[in-house]
């Protein structure tokens, strides 16, 4: 047992820290603001800059533009960036697609996509959910029909993050409507500029435009863009989701560290009803609990990262990571507003205006954390079935 990072990992961390000090991440323009997942906002410019540093593909093979280093090194870099609230949103999700291409892609696909992704030249969205296929992905209705050297896609996808900003999208579609539901699905790599692709951003209840819906109307996709084998799309997608659950949530402790620090600063300097907030024993207890939960989250994240680093499956561990991180994120938003009090609603120009704005936003946005990427209930099913071996209903 050893909870230290290796010398190589610490060296990379120091490089990342140094980079963040020299090129402060907040100076890069963001297309989507930080939504409190822990991985910051969506910034094409920042992603591109990380690509120049080689940090988008730390663990990919060198021949495809990666650095050929370990997953743990990749994790350490992402964690350090998260401490600086750097915008990693734009590429972190594409990474699940990248992992899918590394594992299932043809040589041609690897050569075509991975080096571009490693440079940050192309950003990805993932189109899985549909209006009639949320938690029940088997119900996917989008059709892909073979026609000569192409597949022709028709259907609708909803909730892909950043699809309106992305260049490419992984799409799950039904290739065999007569096969059992689980055995007729395939995955395609779709150029978002293809004729017949229409994307509309969705304005969510926090006022953000991070999700989108995609309409596919007679979209022609050349056969070479089928990822993996035809009708074998489901295991591929589950594999991608396992990583997606982890990478999308594994930075909670790092991303929220500053939230906690800022709330502590606010408490130490503020009064309400003629009493100093720092003398409020309930608030002290609550903040301590959040600090402890962030530490618990950190350890759960490290455990999963350690497993991934050995090439082990994190089929249920990634669900533990996600449920804990999401529900903790919601508690942090709730506690933040408790601390800030009724004045948190006011958009004023005081020195605390930014803090108020952030927590009001998080309060609204964080409702989506336990829904996106698989609801907390679905994650709990996974933990029960895969982690504990309970029987299927």
């Amino acid at each position: 047992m050893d909870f230290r990072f290796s010398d190589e990992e610490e060296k990379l961390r120091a490089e990342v820290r140094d980079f963040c000090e020299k090129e402060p991440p907040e100076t890069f323009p963001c297309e989507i603001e930080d939504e409190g997942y822990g991985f910051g906002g969506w910034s094409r410019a920042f992603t591109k800059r990380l690509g120049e540093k080689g940090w988008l593909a730390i663990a990919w093979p060198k021949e495809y533009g990666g650095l050929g280093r370990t997953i743990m090194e990749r994790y350490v870099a992402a964690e350090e960036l998260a401490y600086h609230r750097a915008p990693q949103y734009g590429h972190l999700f594409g990474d699940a697609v990248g992992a899918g291409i590394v594992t299932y892609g043809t040589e041609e696909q690897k050569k075509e996509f991975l080096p571009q992704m490693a440079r940050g030249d192309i950003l990805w969205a993932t189109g899985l959910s549909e209006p009639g296929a949320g938690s029940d992905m088997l119900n996917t209705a989008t059709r892909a029909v073979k026609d000569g050297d192409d597949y022709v896609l028709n259907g609708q996808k909803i909730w892909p993050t950043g699809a309106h900003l992305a260049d490419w999208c992984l799409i799950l579609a039904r290739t065999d409507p007569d096969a059992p539901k689980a055995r007729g699905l395939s995955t395609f790599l779709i150029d978002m500029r293809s004729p017949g692709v229409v994307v509309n951003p969705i304005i969510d209840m926090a006022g953000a435009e991070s999700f989108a819906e995609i309409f596919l109307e007679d979209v022609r996709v050349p056969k070479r863009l089928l990822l993996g084998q035809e009708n074998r799309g489901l295991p591929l997608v589950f594999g991608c989701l396992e990583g997606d659950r982890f990478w999308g949530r594994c930075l909670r402790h790092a991303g929220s560290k500053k939230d906690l620090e800022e709330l502590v600063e606010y408490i130490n300097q503020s009064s309400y009803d003629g009493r100093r907030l720092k003398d409020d024993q309930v608030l002290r207890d609550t903040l301590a609990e959040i600090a402890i939960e962030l530490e618990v989250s950190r350890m759960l994240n490290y455990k999963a990262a350690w497993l991934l680093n050995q090439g082990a499956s994190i089929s249920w561990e990634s669900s533990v990571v996600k449920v804990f991180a999401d529900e903790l994120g919601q508690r942090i938003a709730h506690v933040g507003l408790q601390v800030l009090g009724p004045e948190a609603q006011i958009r004023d120009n005081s020195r605390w205006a930014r803090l108020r704005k952030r927590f009001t936003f998080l309060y609204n946005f964080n409702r989506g954390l336990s829904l996106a990427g698989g609801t907390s209930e679905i994650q709990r099913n996974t933990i029960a079935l895969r982690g504990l071996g309970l029987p299927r209903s």
Partner: protein
Amino acid sequence: MDFSFSEEQEMLRKIARDFLATECPKDLVRQMARDEKGFTDDLWNKMAELGWMGLPVPEKYGGIEGSFLDVVVLLEEMGRGALPGPFFSSLLGTLAVLHFGSDRQKEDLLPKIARGDLVLTVAISEPGVGYQTSALQCEAVADGSDYVINGTKLLVENAHVADVVVCAVRTRDASGGQGTSLLLVDGKDPSISLTPLETIAGDKQFHVNFNGVRAPQSSVLGEVNKGHEYLEELLALGAVAKCAEMVGAAQAAMDLTTDYVKERVQFDHPIGSLQSIQHHCANMKIDLEGMRYITYLAAWKASEGLPFRKEAAMAKAWASDACIRITNLAHQCHGAIGFCEDHDLPLYSKRAKASEWAFGGARFHRQFVAQEIGL
């Protein structure tokens, strides 16, 4: 980064698990909860043969010289097996001697401890005082070459079988110096009176009166009046050790529950196939994973000699609450059968309460964490 235990530690775990399954069946555990002494010499002696009392003791004193993490592995299994008896309380006394004792004290005590011939306990809490060590009232006043101890200690574990009591006292010297000190007191001293307490878990805790007990100055552990620091460290070690035991207990409650819900059939299906039950179990698993790794973090830091008080407080705060949540859900999933006195589950849910308070409950530790994060 390495979340795994060493081969030796895994072997220790296996030996402990097998041993406790054979030598410490749950009927014995229940019997011991009703028994006045609370353990059998037979079980104690067999544990001594395995060298467990000497696990943290250096080889030169006849011990195995294991690390604190090794001890944590063993405690986890003892929590899992719901081991009754004074192993834990004696271990705390042993750690006090190991960490703060003089060479002479170590030479005197450790070999006997390692053989299992000497049982220790620690006496800290008092009526109305938990682990806020600055509030302790029990007093030891210098008188010639002795200290004279007067006061009351509460919730002292296994005082009835303790040969040596590590007692936290406020010391006053003839020269006017004062502070907190740890004294090694003869547990059989006639000026000590014991009253057994009836407790939730049927563990053996005592109300202990020190009525002018005389202890020579050589019985001071470490330096006199420096006990506050020692006590903080000892309490942190105790908290982490208790967390390890709780991880084992929570794992046992989890295992009992998953086994039961796979077997128990209602509505023609095992109840474990129902999502309401599955989500209870998933919540138990999430809490268990959380308490396991926050405990290992604190234990690893303590084992490596790194500062670990903050991690210890975090672990104890989290584990205290999580273990209660886990056993609560275990009961809900078991339904009425788990409500029976002769079922194994109450062994764990009752102990969860005792463990929650031992070495400070969740709120106590969160007060410390609040300071640590700058409040």
